[in-house]
């Protein structure tokens, strides 16, 4: 990790400098099915995620992130992982961990790991939101600890 003249891996750099699937305007997410928000400014990391579901698969993802490079990169990478190969099944998405994202990024410095963990939490929050809105009570996802009732 201490290897070059950049603190992070090439993949982190790529996703930080050219983030994919980030939210541009409200119109984009008008017909989306779930929304999640985790983290807070005090900790230095805050994330929002919108997901569009079709046939139990995540068809589209948008996100916003306030945070360090690894937070931005990991959300971007997560969004790519969710959308690739025709969209990830919700079941599988719920099993995604911070480590999965981190692995795709080629690793993160120990001190930064908590940032990538935020991505899967935001996703879970969004799926919970979808579960509530769609009545899909079969989805194995609990109410997020930080779930903000009013924001939804």
């Amino acid at each position, binding site marked *: 990790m201490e290897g070059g003249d950049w603190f992070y891996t090439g993949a982190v750099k790529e996703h930080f*400098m050219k983030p994919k699937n980030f939210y541009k305007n409200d119109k984009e997410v008008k017909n989306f099915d779930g929304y999640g*928000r985790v983290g807070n*400014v*005090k900790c*230095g990391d805050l*994330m929002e995620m919108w997901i569009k579901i079709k046939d139990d698969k995540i068809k589209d993802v948008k996100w916003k992130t*306030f945070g*360090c490079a690894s937070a931005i990169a990991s959300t971007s990478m997560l969004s790519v992982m969710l959308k690739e190969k025709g969209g990830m099944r919700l079941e599988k998405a719920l099993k995604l961990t911070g480590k999965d994202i981190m692995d795709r990024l080629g690793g993160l410095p120990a*001190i930064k790991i*908590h940032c990538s963990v935020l991505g899967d939490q935001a996703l879970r929050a969004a799926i919970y939101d979808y579960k509530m809105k769609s009545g899909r009570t079969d989805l194995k996802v609990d109410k997020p600890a930080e779930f903000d009732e009013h924001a939804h």
Partner: protein
Amino acid sequence: MKQIYLDYSATTPTRKEVLAEALPYFNEKFGNPSSFHSTGLVAKKAMSEARAKIAEILHAAPEEVIFTGSGTESINLALKGIAFCAMLEGKKGVFITQKTEHHAVFETLEWLEKLGFEVINAKIDEFGVIDLADLRALLEENKGNVLLVSIMYANNEIGTIQPIREIADICHEYEVIMHTDACQGAEYLNLNTEDLGVDMMTLNGSKVYAFKGTGLLFKKNNVKIEPLIHGGAHEGGMRAGTENVAGIVAFAKALEIAEKEKKKESARLSKLRDYMIKKIQKEIPNTLLNGDAKKRLPNNVNISFEGVEGESILLRLNEKGIRVSTGSACSSQSLDPSHVLLGIGRPHGLAHGSIRFSLGHDTTKKQIDYTIKELKGIIKFLREISPVWEKNDWKRKIKK
């Protein structure tokens, strides 16, 4: 891509003239100053001359200059030197400082707290300037118990300059010793210790275009401290170990140049600094200057950008060849926002979103213009992908 280095407060390159002066002491005049033969005495002479040069700048006696291996070591020597002195007399006591000190001061004091000493922070205002009335009240309250007051000359993050003379005078009214960490002030501020009235003062080489791993403690002859590093009579018994002769020669040369160019360079950079602050505030909405606009190091610009996080700004500027810092370099590896910004009462969001631009010898107006141009685009983009830019309301609360 040419690099635009705006992180001179983190460290400076060694100036060519300085390196040239020091180079012979690596292998041509490489003797150990403690050696009795000519090879040793040549090194000793160089060291004595360096010490005399620096003493002259500080308006001190040569033996009042103790060379150390860093600014941090100098600070540890001053603070623990006083503490151990008290301990050996079977006493404990109080240290007075304030919240925006460098890690070297506050972590050392934290450690001394574990050993039973008490540490009290004097109040500061929202610009980081010490509250002299509070300092006086603390000295009155703890009369007879205060071992040392340590207040930095200029802050490394927000550039705020403290009224050192006034602080020293108040300390001396109460017969309390005063130390100042002047690592950030050396290049631009008055280093005459008679004018400043301080009893101890820390400087380092890595901030004045000399070598990393060099520092010094000015200690008035009448101040009694215990050494931090034992093992020989070097540095008047105050700091044992073979002296870093090349580093010491470099340090003296660098301070000499600084002294000569101080007035002109301070004026030049103050102008550039004010230009930069004004231009950023004009071109980028919702920014906030941290620190005092006037009582400020000529080379320091520290600004919080609402709605974005500092590291992201830093790394995107880095991609454009621009080197800046979030808070102090030391804390870059920490996730906590700057203790300095929290110390002056900035909310976490703004503390997370601050950037320190520190100007220096090679900084030009052109560089500043280029930096602001790139900065503008970066802030715009990061705010676009930021969930706190439109939604959150903390940003409005702090606006003045």
